[in-house]
C-alpha cells in the first residue's frame, strides 16, 4: 500500500526534509573532503544516495546491518573523518542503540546521524517502522546532541551547523512528505537556541518537527477567534536544551504545552518539564504527543489529527490549559 506513496508532492525537491538533506550534504561535501556518507541499504529512501552518486569514493553502503553501520562510522570518525550516517530512525535508535551509545557517544566521536522516517511520518508502515521513542533514547546518551528540524529548510541549516559542531549529533527528520515552513535559511538558526515564531503572553506552545507549522497555524486561529496571545517556540534542539527560552516562557506566560510527534515519555515534553520543575515556578503544563501506547497505524496526517498534533488538536488543548490555574487563585481583593 505504501510503496506507491513516494514523493507525490508537486515539488518534492524543494519541500521535503530528506531531499534537501541529500542536496545540502552534497554541497558541504564539495567543500569539506573529510565528510563521508554511510547507509544500510537505504541510500535512496534516506536521500543520502545523492551524496553517493556525487562522491562514490566517499560513500559506504554496509548492507542491511545497522549495528555494523554505526561501528564503521565510529571507526571512520576516529580516523579524523566526519561521517554522516543515514538510516531510519527506528533502526538507529533501537536496532543499533548499543553501537550509537558505546561506539560513538562514549568516545564522543564526531559522527553525524541523520535519522529519517521518524515519529509517525511513515505511519502507514506499521509499528515496526514507527519511531516514537528515539528522542527519549538519544537525549539520554551523554555527549549526544539532538535536533528535530521543523522542515527541509531547517534541516539544511541543521546539517550545515552540525559539521563544525563537535561530537555526535542526532538529526531527526521525517519520511519526506513534511510541508515547508520556512521561506529561506536566514532566520537565525543556531544549535541550542529556540526560535520565537510568534510572541504572546497568555500561553506558550513549545514544538519541534512537524508540529511547529501546526502550532503557528493554531496560534493565528486562536488570536483571531479566541483573542488569545499565544507564544510559539520552535525548540529544534532538544539537547542541549535552551533553558533560558523555557524559563522565560514559564515566567512570562505561566502556561506551557509541548507538542511532539513522539511518545510523551522522555521526549520534548519531558525535557521541557525538567526545566519547569527546576525553575521552581508555578506553571500550568501539558505534554501532547503519542501517549504511553504503540501508535495506531495510518497516514501521518490522520495520526496527527488523532493524537491532537494538528492545528485543530492544538487549539483544543490550548482552550483546556487556559482554564487551568498556575497558582492558588482565591485572592481577588484589590490592594489599596
Amino acid at each position: 500500500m505504501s510503496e506507491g506513496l513516494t514523493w507525490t508532492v508537486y515539488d518534492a525537491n524543494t519541500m521535503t526534509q530528506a531531499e534537501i538533506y541529500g542536496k545540502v550534504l552534497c554541497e558541504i561535501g564539495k567543500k569539506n573532503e573529510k565528510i563521508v556518507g554511510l547507509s544500510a541499504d537505504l541510500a535512496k529512501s534516506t536521500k543520502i544516495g545523492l551524496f553517493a552518486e556525487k562522491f562514490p569514493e566517499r560513500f559506504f553502503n554496509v548492507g542491511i546491518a545497522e549495528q555494523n553501520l554505526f561501528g564503521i562510522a565510529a571507526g571512520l570518525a576516529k580516523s579524523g573523518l566526519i561521517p554522516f550516517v543515514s538510516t531510519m530512525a527506528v533502526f538507529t535508535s533501537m536496532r543499533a542503540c548499543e553501537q550509537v551509545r558505546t561506539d560513538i557517544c562514549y568516545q564522543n566521536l564526531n559522527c553525524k546521524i541523520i535519522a529519517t522516517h521518524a515519529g509517525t511520518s511513515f505511519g502507514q508502515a506499521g509499528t515496526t517502522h514507527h519511531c516514537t521513542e528515539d528522542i527519549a533514547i538519544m537525549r539520554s546518551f551523554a555527549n549526544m546532541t539532538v535536533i528535530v528540524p521543523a522542515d527541509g529548510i531547517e534541516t539544511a541549516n541543521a546539517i550545515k551547523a552540525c559539521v563544525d559542531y563537535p561530537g555526535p549529533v542526532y538529526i531527526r527528520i521525517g519520511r519526506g512528505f513534511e510541508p515547508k515552513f520556512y521561506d529561506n535559511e536566514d532566520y537565525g538558526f543556531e544549535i541550542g537556541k529556540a526560535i520565537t515564531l510568534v510572541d504572546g503572553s497568555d500561553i506558550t506552545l513549545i514544538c519541534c518537527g512537524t508540529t511547529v507549522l501546526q502550532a503557528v497555524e493554531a496560534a493565528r486561529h486562536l488570536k483571531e477567534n479566541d483573542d488569545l496571545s499565544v507564544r510559539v517556540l520552535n525548540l529544534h534542539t532538544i539537547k542541549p536544551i535552551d533553558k533560558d527560552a523555557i524559563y522565560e516562557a514559564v515566567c512570562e506566560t505561566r502556561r506551557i504545552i509541548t507538542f511532539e510527534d513522539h511518545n510523551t515519555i522522555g521526549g520534548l515534553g519531558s525535557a521541557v518539564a525538567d526545566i519547569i520543575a527546576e525553575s521552581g515556578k508555578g506553571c500550568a503544563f501539558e505534554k501532547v504527543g503519542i501517549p504511553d501506547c504503540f501508535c495506531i497505524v495510518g497516514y501521518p496526517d490522520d495520526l496527527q489529527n488523532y493524537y491532537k498534533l494538528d492545528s485543530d488538536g492544538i487549539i483544543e488543548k490550548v482552550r483546556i490549559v487556559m482554564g487551568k490555574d498556575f497558582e492558588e487563585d482565591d485572592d481577588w481583593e484589590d490592594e489599596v
Partner: protein
Amino acid sequence: MVNQTDIIKSTIILRAMLPVMKILVSDDKKMNAKFSGLNAKVQFKAKNDNDETGACLIFKEGNLEIEQRICSNPDIEFTFSDIIKMNDFFCGKPVLPKISGWLNFFLLVKIFFLLFGMKILMPDSRPNTPEKKRLKVKMSFYMITTALSQYNKAGDSEMVKWTKKQPDRIYQISVDEDIAAYLRIKAGKSKAGRGTYTKKRPFVHLKFNGVDGAFPVVMNDVDMVTAVRNGLLVIEGSPEYGRDLGDFMVRIQNMLV
C-alpha cells in the same frame, strides 16, 4: 433617586479614591507631619435605602488604613443623607454632611486638611513642584487601577463583558521604580495591585518615561497617541486592549468629575 450609576460611583469613591489618602499621608511631608503619631477613627457614611454604606479612616500611630465598613465609636463621623450627596462631596461639590465629634476639633481640622489635599486628584488641580507632580501621578495611577477593578466588581455591563472574555491577563502601568500599579483580569474577575506584577509578563504594559512623561497624560494635556509619539510613553502588548483600557479610564474619570 439613587440609580445604578450612583452606586457604582460611590463604590469607586469609597474603595478606590479614599484609599489613596494613604499615599497622601505617607508621601507628603507636611501631611505626614500633621498626622504623625495620631490614633483616631473617622467615619464617612451615607444612607442607602434601609442600609448604610461607608468607609472608616483608621489612624494608628500616624499610619492610615481604610476599612470598608461602619466602625464603632468613631472620633468623628461624616453622615450624608444619601450616597448621591456623599458622591458629590468627594467630587468637590458644595455639600454639607452632618458632622458629629466637634469636640475633636483639632482632628477635624486635620481631616479637612486631608480632604483638601485630595483635591490634587481633580483634573483642574495642576501642581507645579516636582514633589507634588509626583504625588499626583502616583495617586492617580493607584486610584485608576483600583477604580477599574471596582468598576468591574460593581457590575458595569460593558466592563463585565470586557473582563469576562479574557484569560489571565495583566495590565501594568509603570512610571519608575517606585510608582507602578497593575490590574489583573481573569475570566470576569479583577484585582488591582501595587508595584510590578512579577508572576507573568503583562499583556499590556504602559511604560511612562518617568513622572515628566506621565504628568502630561494625567493632566490630559496630551492623549495617549500623542504621548507615544512624543516619547512620553511606550505601550507594549495588544494595542486594541490598551485602547479599551484607556476608554474605561475615561469613562470612570467622566463619572467622577
